[in-house]
């Protein structure tokens, strides 16, 4: 799929001769060497829409992110509140909470992930089709939060899953979730379809399934996925 997309992107790129130049004609930026943002805006005002396949593809994807209907703890209530009339996540195209992971694009880890729940969360992530994104909502999903010292609490879902957006708060307000969603949309819009910076779902060598931890006698086995997460080195060694 990636090759075909790349070819399409190449063929639909407009030729320099076709691009009408405005009177000011600013020098094109290195990101879009063919036409500048100001020129494109001017054209839009005239009713001519110029775009690349990459841009319209990402634009479409970023405004139809379907989250998985998956609530873990307190943050799930705020997630539901965000989808209700007052905050109205539908303004961002994400109101379609899908009960099945097979139909979802976004996993909002909304709450404390316990060790008993962690294998199920990883399995849900594995069942979601690419392209998929993960938002760690709330302090617990980020690091364990207030329950970090609990024996059954996973100290952050990023030990097992690649997290795209972290939303702090305990619980984050619905506005914070909306902001996180907007950040995710921005991230999706910036993704390249070709080249070495292509996202995970366009790279054949990247795994889309992550190893599911198993229950050990005292802890999860393994306690973290070393391919995703390494313990951070201490910035200052605590005096011993």
């Amino acid at each position, binding site marked *: 799929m990636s090759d075909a997309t790349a070819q399409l992107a190449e063929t639909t790129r407009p030729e320099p001769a076709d691009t009408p130049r405005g009177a000011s004609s600013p020098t094109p930026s290195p990101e879009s060497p063919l036409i500048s943002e100001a020129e494109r805006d001017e054209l839009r005002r005239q009713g001519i829409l110029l775009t690349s396949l990459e841009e319209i593809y990402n634009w479409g994807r970023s405004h139809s992110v379907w989250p998985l*209907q*998956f*609530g*873990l*703890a*307190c943050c*799930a*209530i*705020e997630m*539901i*509140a965000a989808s*209700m*009339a*007052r905050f109205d996540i539908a303004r961002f195209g994400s109101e379609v909470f899908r*009960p099945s*992971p097979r139909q979802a694009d976004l996993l909002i880890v909304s*709450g*404390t992930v*316990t060790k*008993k*729940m962690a294998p*199920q969360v990883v399995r*849900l992530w594995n069942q979601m089709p690419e392209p998929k994104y993960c938002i760690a909502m709330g302090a617990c999903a980020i690091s364990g939060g*207030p*329950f970090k*010292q*609990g*024996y*059954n*609490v996973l100290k952050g879902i990023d030990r097992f899953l690649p997290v795209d957006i972290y939303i702090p708060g*305990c*619980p984050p*307000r619905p506005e914070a979730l909306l902001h996180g969603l907007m950040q995710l949309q921005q991230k999706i819009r910036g993704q390249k379809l070709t080249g070495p910076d292509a996202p995970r779902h366009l790279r054949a060598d990247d795994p889309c399934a992550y190893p599911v931890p198993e229950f050990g006698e005292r802890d999860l086995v393994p306690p973290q996925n070393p391919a995703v997460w390494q313990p951070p080195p201490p910035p200052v060694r605590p005096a011993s």
Partner: protein
Amino acid sequence: MNLESGISPAADRSAPALPAALPPFNPAANAQVREVHDPFHGDLLEVSMGPHHPSTHGVFRMMVTLDGEAIVKLKPVFGYLHRNHEKLGENTTYLASMPYTDRLDYLNSMTNNWAYALAVEKLAGQPVPERAEYLRVILAELTRLLNHTCLAGFLLQDTGASGTPLMYAFREREKILDLFESISGSRMMCNFQRFGGCRVDATPDWLAATQRFVDGYNEFLDEYEALITGNEILMARTQGVGVLGPELAVNAGITGPMLRACGVNYDLRKVDGYGVYPRFDFRVPLGDHGDTYDRYMIRVLEMRESLGILQQALRDLPAGPIMDPKAKIRGLKPKPGEAYGRIEGPKGEIGFYLISDGSANPYRYRVRPPSFVNLTVLEDMCLGQTVADAVIILGSVDIVLGEVDR
């Protein structure tokens, strides 16, 4: 289901799942009716509902065994949100446990706070000033409104009325959350009560806003009931479904609206008379049938009574301090001993059991979670019903997983 056993959901529905008198507890009675693999009658189907299931209200899991569509065995599986609340409570000071209690039943942080504060006050012999008691009543009744409104919305969501009733419920919830936010600074995790009083005082503006809200709430309830209560589909789905008898309910320790739906008159606001509740005039609604519809109606009626309590409390709210001047909050070290404090939370009896050994941390910190104990009879209510009914029955039990698993 094969032809021999026949498909007769109507016959299943009319028969209550339980005998009227409580049988002696016998696990064999709850065992599956026949072998899972039965070549003659067809196999039973074992379904794991959860922990990721759209209508289990969190990470709750039920191992359900089905004969056709009828449930013949149901075993709940807990622990997917076991956050070690009690262990953390034993490793922190008394005050530091207060924010954790917010996260127990995360819809009702105010009543959790109150139950914990009450237990510590009993342990330390701490009096509470009158204004603080009134504020606690006001906030607890607002919490009850919030919980019951959300429950009604979610119950309708479970019956398949996707979206609209929940939107109505959450519209009202946001109004209550605005009140909570303006008095405590946080929407959900209020962390408001302290040992010997409350953290901040209510301003006249806040009281006026609360009065306006309370005055308008009956109108919302009328609107909501006009939409829902007489609804034919709701009555067909809930009446006679999940019947629970009073003997079993008492024996199984069921509390809260679920108990009163069976007709047992036990409301801790009346029985214990904690706080200033004896000063208010209110009635305890009781159900007749103990089915899902009664459990829904009890909550609607309780909301009406809560509004009455709120009107009286707002009218009688005295002036004065909100904290006992001698109260010790930070570095509280109660003398050795133990205390069990309980209040009538929106979901049932929420209690805290504390043992002090004289140090700054409780030696034992135990939460008596109402929704965890209420799940004891889930299997009894679901036997003989269909899978779709099990979802509604679970919804009417009103669980919050933060409290079930702690």
